[in-house]
């Protein structure tokens, strides 16, 4: 692994495979992502995007192959403090606890760092409130801090999830179709926000998206997936709508409807 670049590696996948009963979700996939890169994962539904992102986030374990974060083997890392400071995941659905206040949902980003007693005490009188306020200011929701999370709209909840990620402060931000549940304008806002956060603090940013426009605007690199296999891994300048369309067409989908916003 005498890599040619002097840049630090944030993520390295080495022949990673993952299967679910009856189907191969990801097949012997390898690539590297450097610190501070913004990488888009594209591919039709069922191509293995979510599986790939969840593997990188330590949400699921590979069947074979190795994943390295900061050159540490992911499988040897303890979940909790160590893993949560390295990588944070924004899910397809915002996946907050609807019954808790916005404040508690944001501060849940600290659960990896807090002890058990601290965590329980914080439910009664929230700790690190300034952290929550700061994160909510960045996503523009600081005035909703005391509200029940279930009272917020889908887009607002997605922002609360981002605020939680800000409080967690991982080195790598992974977003699984962060825009799937939003209308195009809000989707762009959201990717814009995530990309800005990543850029400003030199965080590595990996997200699955559907449109070439978004890819060109916010990412350096695009990895194309189809049927659990890597089809291409190119700097964004080389990624044309035709290339992306080809990825989808092979699945028999209408290129127009998927590629264009």
């Amino acid at each position, binding site marked *: 692994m005498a890599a040619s670049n002097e840049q630090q590696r944030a993520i390295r996948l080495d022949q990673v495979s993952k299967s679910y009963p009856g189907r191969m979700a990801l097949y012997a996939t390898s690539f590297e992502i450097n610190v501070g890169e913004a990488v888009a994962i594209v591919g039709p539904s069922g191509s293995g995007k979510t599986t790939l992102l969840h593997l990188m*986030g*330590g*949400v699921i374990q590979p069947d074979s192959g190795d994943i390295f974060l900061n050159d540490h083997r992911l499988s040897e890392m303890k*979940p*909790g*403090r160590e*893993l*949560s*400071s390295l990588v*944070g*995941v924004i*899910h397809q*659905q915002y*996946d*907050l*606890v*609807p*019954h*808790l206040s916005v404040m*508690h949902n944001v501060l*849940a*980003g*600290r*659960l*990896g*760092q*807090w002890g*058990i007693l601290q*965590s*329980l005490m914080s*439910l009664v009188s929230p700790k690190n409130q300034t952290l929550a306020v700061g994160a909510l200011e960045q996503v523009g929701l600081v005035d909703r801090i005391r509200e*029940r999370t279930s009272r917020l709209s889908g887009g607002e909840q997605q922002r609360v*999830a981002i605020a*939680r990620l800000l409080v*967690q402060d991982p080195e790598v931000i992974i977003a699984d179709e962060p825009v799937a549940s939003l209308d195009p304008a809000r989707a762009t806002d959201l990717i814009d926000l995530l990309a800005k956060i990543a850029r400003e603090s030199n965080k590595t940013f990996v997200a699955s998206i559907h449109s070439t426009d978004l890819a060109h605007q916010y990412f350096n690199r695009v990895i194309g997936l189809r049927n659990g296999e890597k089809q291409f891994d190119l700097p964004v300048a080389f990624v044309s709508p035709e290339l992306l369309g080809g990825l989808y067409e092979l699945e028999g989908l209408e290129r127009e409807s998927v590629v264009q916003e």
Partner: protein
Amino acid sequence: MRASSRSKFREGRGLLTLILAAALGLSLLSVDWTGGLLHSGGVSYAVRIFGGMFTPELSPKFLALALEATWNTLTFAVTGVTLAVGIGLPLGIAASGVLFSEGWLRTSTVAAARFVLAFLRSIHELVWAWLFVVAFGLSPMAAILALALPYSGILGRLYGDFLNDVPQNPLRALRASGASEFKTLAYGRIPMAMPDMLSYTFYRFECGVRSAAILSFVGIQGLGYQIQLSMDDLLYDQVWTLMYLLVAVIVAIDVWSSVVRRNLTR
């Protein structure tokens, strides 16, 4: 395979329904409809008893006594159910198995907790009361324990199910933020299960008030005790006063419960 076992279950259920219906029919045939249904003078008793519905005793002296009995019953129920929540919640968490990953430790903890819960709730509070009275004599403590033990078995069982049945995605997101299973319980499972848990606890509290009224023979001057005294003296007006108070308490709990739940889910 799953579908076939389900349809087999359906078939079995149909058969069971048929057998139960037949048993009910046969049991109706065995009732002696001509003679034994009412004892001699039964009709006049029935008139006196149900006539009391419309003329409950409302003298200040009796009302004071009845309210005190209601208060006693209520405190008894509150203490018993609170104790039951205290015992049932940890047992329910253990029985849900959510704190452990797959393995023998989880399997054995779940099995042990479920057994304890089943043991506690399979014995009726009247039987527990009987046992405690024989063991410790007539005392409020015996009555409270008699209520708390079976109720903790029932509450714990339901709490365990509620904690298991919450949506999984928010839990996964909490784990991704570095939360251990215990923290996931505190920040995800319990808050999400809370409306169901509260609603069921309130319902059980209602049941607890009814049971407490009955259990007052164990040594608490509660509603059941007063009802028994009035019945013995054939003072049915008083009986109805006491029963209306019981109804009032249940309705009050119901209102309280819906207010609390509305605040929680708003």
